[in-house]
């Protein structure tokens, strides 16, 4: 009926894609857990594309006017600016997940130490690129970023070197500032691309860390043997997996953006549009800005984007400011910017255990887990409240996860190693957790309603979230315990034919793809309905994702057989949800 094989052979003879020197992996590595890095990379690709397009209309001499005109007068301008922001959110968020996953699995171990270090450097440059990126907008948050960044640097590095660094980063002449920020943003983004290639290249030399199910939590073998019989050819299997995953990530990012645009101002950390100061807007030459823009400006208070809120919160812990002339913020700078990457960097060199089991690696598991928990806690704390804090409150808030994770690790590690776990130990653990629950309640009762100010509730919520995260982390560690029965590797049985329902799902996806292409080209007005247009682009990406996923299933059905429709449905469901949301926003 179709003779796609002839075309595939023609291309293969010319392009020799199946001979690309990529590390080959087995079919059972085609799962999301091994592809989180690809989510980061595809977010980065979307950032590069949207960023280069945004460059067409950026004006460093009047960024406020340039961005105002971009989102109100340029077709698809609002789509590009908001998608660039949301892709940055997605990249940073998925990079944190990527880091956590590889930390938890011990993927940094020999011989992948340099992959890990290159990844940390790439991540730091990513944050710095993002910082200059949101400074470029020229809105309220951007101006605060420049002000806070200048203050932190000059208070950390003293009267002379602080000023030198501020001048290098932000320029002293304000009229020249945005030329410099633009250059720095693009240069750092280029550097980020090069570092990503280094990180990926180093990774490719080793291939992914063999799955713990195959090694039984051992560090041997260090690499996936390249003579295994279940290795997938890079082309078309990895290629198609990467393509549909990338399209899915793009679609998901754009869909979240569309929902956020349609929802309006929910919270400034989620708001996708610039938040301009009305007076600055008038000074830039915008005389009658729309009502929603002024409303958003009214509801906004000083706060950086979410990925720097943790540092913003550390800045508020005033007991950390040491009394040294001109260098008062150096401790804060070290705690928020230097210490976390430094701690992560030493993991490969202090963890030389033969096992990759999280309960055999106390320092990475406990310290690394706490780093992530504290990151989340500080972010939520910073978003909930603003103010200066006593050492006691802060210690209480951060002591809770520490106790839970350390005790939880200790009990689980003893249990895993077959050592006796005394009832007293478990009881103490339970009592501590209960105390954390009960003590604040008792304190509220004792102090009466006066004590329960808004800030108090924020502190309490932060402590409880820390407790919940710590318990969740201990529960995650518990899942890695041997279940007692030997794990049966179930051989998948099922159809090696493509059943009709799956083909029909893909046909519906293609129909939605064609619909979104036609609507985007012929019907929709991007200026009258920016959120609807954004949703249509999301549908375009997601339906393409569904269709390419179908092609991937057709290619791998011999190795990953079809079992039942429920397993095939989830990727396509995302397409249909996008279609419903798009229709809801447009109509």
């Amino acid at each position, binding site marked *: *009926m*179709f*003779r*796609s*094989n002839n075309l*595939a052979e023609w291309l293969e003879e010319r392009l020799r894609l199946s001979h690309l020197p990529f590390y080959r992996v087995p079919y059972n590595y085609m799962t999301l857990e091994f592809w989180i890095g690809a989510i980061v990379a595809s977010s980065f690709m979307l950032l590069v594309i949207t960023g280069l*397009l945004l460059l*067409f209309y950026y004006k460093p001499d009047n960024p406020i006017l340039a961005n105002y005109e971009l989102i109100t007068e*340029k*077709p*698809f*301008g609002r*789509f*590009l600016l908001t998608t660039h922001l949301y892709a940055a959110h997605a990249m940073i968020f998925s990079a944190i997940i990527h880091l956590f996953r590889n930390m938890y699995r011990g993927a940094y171990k020999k011989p992948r130490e340099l992959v890990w270090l290159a990844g940390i450097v790439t991540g730091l440059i990513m944050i710095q690129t993002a910082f200059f990126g949101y400074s470029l907008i020229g809105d309220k948050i951007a101006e605060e970023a420049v002000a806070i960044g200048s203050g932190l640097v000059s208070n950390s590095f003293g009267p002379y070197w602080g000023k030198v660094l501020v001048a290098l980063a932000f320029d002293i002449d304000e009229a020249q500032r945005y030329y410099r920020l633009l250059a720095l943003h693009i240069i750092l983004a280029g550097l980020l691309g090069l570092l990503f290639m280094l990180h990926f290249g180093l990774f490719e030399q080793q291939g992914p860390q063999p799955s713990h199910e195959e090694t039984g939590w051992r560090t041997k073998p260090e690499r996936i043997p390249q003579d295994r019989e279940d290795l997938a050819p890079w082309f078309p299997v990895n290629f*198609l997996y990467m*393509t549909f995953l990338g*399209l899915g990530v793009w679609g998901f990012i754009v869909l979240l953006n569309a929902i956020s645009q349609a929802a309006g101002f929910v919270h400034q950390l989620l708001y996708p549009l610039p938040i301009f100061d009305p007076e600055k807007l008038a000074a830039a030459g915008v005389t009658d800005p729309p009502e929603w823009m002024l409303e958003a400006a009214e509801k906004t208070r000083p706060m950086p984007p979410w990925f720097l809120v943790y540092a913003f919160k550390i800045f508020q812990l005033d007991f950390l400011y040491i009394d040294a002339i001109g260098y008062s913020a150096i401790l804060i700078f070290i705690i928020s910017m230097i210490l976390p990457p430094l701690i992560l960097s030493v993991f490969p060199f202090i963890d030389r255990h033969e096992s990759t089991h999280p309960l055999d690696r106390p320092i990475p598991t406990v310290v690394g887990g706490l780093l992530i928990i504290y990151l989340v806690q500080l972010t939520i704390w910073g978003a909930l409240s603003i103010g200066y804090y006593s050492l006691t409150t802060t210690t209480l808030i951060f002591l809770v996860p520490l106790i839970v994770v350390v005790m939880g690790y200790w009990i689980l590690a003893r249990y895993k190693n077959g050592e006796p776990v005394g009832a007293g130990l478990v009881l103490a653990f339970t009592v501590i957790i209960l105390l954390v629950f009960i003590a604040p309640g008792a304190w509220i009762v004792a102090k009466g309603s006066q004590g329960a100010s808004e800030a108090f509730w924020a502190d309490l919520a932060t402590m409880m979230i820390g407790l919940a995260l710590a318990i969740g982390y201990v529960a995650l560690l518990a899942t890695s315990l041997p279940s007692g029965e030997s794990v049966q590797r179930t051989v998948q049985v099922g159809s090696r*034919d*493509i059943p*009709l329902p*799956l*083909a029909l799902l*893909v*046909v519906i*996806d*293609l129909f939605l*793809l*064609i619909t*979104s*292409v036609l609507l*985007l*080209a012929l019907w929709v007005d*991007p200026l009258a309905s920016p959120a609807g*247009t954004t949703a249509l*682009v999301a549908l*375009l*990406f997601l*339906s*393409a994702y*569904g*269709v*390419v996923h*179908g*092609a*991937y*299933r*057709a*290619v791998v*059905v011999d190795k990953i057989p079809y079992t039942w429709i429920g397993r095939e449905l989830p990727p396509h469901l995302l397409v249909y949800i996008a279609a419903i949301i798009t229709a809801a926003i447009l109509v």
Partner: protein
Amino acid sequence: MTSRRDFLKVLGAFGLVGVAGGLAPPIIRYVMPPIPPQQPFPRTKLVWEDGTPVKASELEVNKMYLFSYPMVNTPNFLLNLGDENGNPIEIPPAELPITMDPTKDESAVFKAQGGRVEIGRIEGRGGVYRFPGGIGPNKSIVAYSGICQHFACFYPALKFFPPGASPPNPPSEAVAKGGVIFCACHGSAYDPYRGAIVTEAPAPSPLPAVILEWDPNTDELWAVRVEGSTITGKFCNTCAQPEEMVGDTTTVKQVA
């Protein structure tokens, strides 16, 4: 059912082509810059650099004058055409093709060579426009766009050579005789005595004509509009912001 497998592979290829093709229209719409609004042609008096009006009788025969019209960055020639002896020549009106190719359009070349006075109707692709001929006391004053219609070279690459003055490296004997507007960039030649039609390729169209008005009572000159092909490099002859248009007066400078 291998056919169903192949079907899904083909759909996958469609999906990749579809997503790339579907992104193209939005990207083009975004990247397309705004086209400046079309302005009315200004009625502009020609003045010397000291501000005094240009009198038709002050223009020396066969000298080259430049002025900007209708935008500040579109130069034009102002010529008082004459013969080798410096006697002014009456330039007749004509209907000229908006596009023409002297290497292919035999009839255009034939009629252009037919005589300086009797230019007939020359058919060309893209329609015709009316060149009103010379004005002034001797009907010898004309104005043409000073931007070559080939790749937009302008003075000093594009110059008027009076009869008897040969451009350097003339591409043909006809050009060597002078009486041409010649572009040194790629060798295009126009005949200013016949509405600046193309006599030597590669220029694809006559130089647009600036329509002048002459007041016999005061002897003053006005530029009122541009006719013919669109000035090379412009979206339309008056697509510009208002401040980019010349105002009530434009300065005439003698360059040779």
